[in-house]
């Protein structure tokens, strides 16, 4: 719904995302603040935004395959691992520049994703979810049993460089990560309103009718997996060169579960929902980290570091609350808020 007084005079305007000069003003100032942030923000917050941005890229991918196309995937952490390892191997062993390794990691993860997504051609829902869990373990097993991945020891990729400039701190990586995140958000948002996005939603809402509209189910499901895993792969590459150490401990099924949780809490099928979901879970995790020492002191029988289990409990609780009370996620709340704000002071 449009705010009162805003009418679309052409189809071009109707389909535009950014419609008024106020929107442009808000967008540009927000970007300005974001890009200047490392100059005045604390190290802690800069690292936090790096982490958020990488998670956002992963969950954007998940939004495409699960939120839009309706194919539930618990493989996102494994596909991220494929990206992280591809990027590390390419830069360390083959001397490929990070700037080339970044898209190649996405493509590699996408290719693995097509294989991983193949079961979706035959099975749906719960069974597909189980199949993707199996794929997660196969990928991690393969990584652990290959020579080139450094097996249990993992790999130590270098920070990216341009000319002589090294992106060797969180503040410096911030610019790369945030830029990639913005580009990929832009891409996902556009994909959603394009022919391909509608084909994905057609498959999600009614695959029978989708076929009658001429949507090739096989092709489009695999395309959704490819794009989704491309996102995960790119995120993995950024992660690898930010942390500069890669091992399979960073990509467990629990991480995959967390990404699905972010998607559900944020809201399926919505791009702002991805941001809400990631922010919610990441802040929750920070709060748990913050609270657990105090808790350990207050309730000694919990052990010396209850953070791990407390985190799981908080996550599980949040998931349950959202599934029961707001299964459409924070994005839906946000829509309700927006439309009531626009209609204020009228009720409808």
């Amino acid at each position: 719904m449009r705010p009162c007084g805003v009418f679309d005079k052409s189809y071009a305007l109707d389909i535009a995302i950014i419609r008024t000069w106020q929107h442009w003003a808000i967008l540009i100032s927000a970007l300005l603040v974001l890009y200047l942030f490392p100059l005045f923000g604390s190290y802690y917050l800069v690292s936090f935004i790096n982490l958020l941005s990488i998670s956002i890229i992963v969950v954007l991918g998940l939004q495409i395959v699960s939120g839009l196309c309706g194919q539930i995937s618990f493989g996102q952490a494994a596909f991220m691992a494929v990206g992280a390892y591809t990027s590390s191997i390419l830069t360390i062993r083959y001397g490929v520049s990070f700037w080339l390794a970044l898209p190649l990691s996405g493509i590699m993860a996408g290719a693995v994703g097509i294989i991983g997504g193949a079961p979706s051609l035959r099975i749906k829902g719960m069974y597909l979810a189980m199949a993707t869990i199996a794929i997660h373990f196969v990928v991690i097993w393969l990584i652990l049993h290959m020579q080139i991945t450094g097996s249990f020891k993992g790999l130590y990729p270098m920070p990216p460089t341009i000319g002589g400039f090294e992106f060797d701190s969180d503040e410096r990586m911030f610019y790369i990560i945030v830029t990639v995140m913005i580009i990929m958000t832009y891409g996902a948002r556009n994909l959603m309103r394009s022919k391909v996005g509608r084909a994905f939603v057609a498959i999600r809402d009614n695959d029978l009718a989708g076929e009658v509209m001429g949507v090739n189910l096989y092709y489009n499901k695999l395309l959704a997996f490819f794009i989704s895993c491309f996102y995960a792969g790119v995120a993995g590459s950024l992660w690898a060169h930010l942390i500069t150490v890669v091992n399979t401990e960073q990509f467990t099924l629990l991480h995959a579960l967390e990404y699905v949780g972010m998607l559900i809490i944020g809201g399926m099928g919505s791009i702002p929902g991805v941001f809400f979901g990631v922010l919610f879970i990441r802040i929750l995790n920070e709060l748990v980290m913050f609270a657990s020492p105090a808790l350990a002191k207050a309730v000694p029988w919990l052990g010396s570091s209850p953070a791990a289990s407390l985190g799981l409990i908080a996550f599980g609780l949040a998931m349950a609350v959202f599934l029961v009370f707001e299964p459409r996620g924070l994005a839906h709340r946000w829509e309700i808020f927006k439309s009531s704000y626009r209609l204020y002071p009228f009720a409808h």
Partner: protein
Amino acid sequence: MNHLNSEDEAVIRIQRLSLKFGGLQALSDVSVDIRSGKILAIIGPNGAGKTCFLNCINGFYHPYEGEILYRERDLTRLKPHQIASLGIARTFQNIELFSGLTALDNLMSARHIHMRRGALLGCLFFGPTRREEIAHRERVEEVIDLLEMASIRKKTVGSLPYGQRKKVDLARALCMDPSILLLDEPMAGMNVEEKEDMARFILDVYELKKIPIVLIEHDMDVVMDICQRIVVLDFGRKLAEGRPQEVKDNERVIRAYLGEE
């Protein structure tokens, strides 16, 4: 005379179509020509095989015998999406819409087969992709005007009343710019007023596009009014075929509908 001939050309020839589910013979030996520029009604009691007949044409079911020739091409081994891209559009008895989308997006999704820009250009969404999107939006808006749907354009279809959803289903099929339109009980469950509207829309579409329309319908009054030919199915067999009046007076049809006396 020439004009008449081209109107009578068979666009789809269905020959000796037979379909089985386990022991159940859903269709046996059905031969029908779908002719250009005609509205063909398919009638018959419940379970006669009418929907199965459409499902064979658009590729959901594959008959074990017989062929469906569309411009000399056999459709029986093609997938539904391939048949759709040949321009064969249909609606569903039980309304199969994309319920989470707005009416407009439902219709835009029907432009799928006509749109060329793939995923990569879709992500960028300026220049050619944007122009394509707007061009197709214009085509969709024409259908919205034709079916008087402007007021529900931006409504989520899941929230629309039954009659409106039926209309979106028809509109979506039209947005494919089809060369043949298959309608499975478009008026079922509607009140008299909605039925009249729907009949009018079907006639409008027919006048405007001059494409063959296959209409499955139970309401004999409607069928008599708007169709030029009628095929009667019963227990998967073709019982009769002909002009409305002929079929209405046919002994066997009367018996099938009213039972043996």
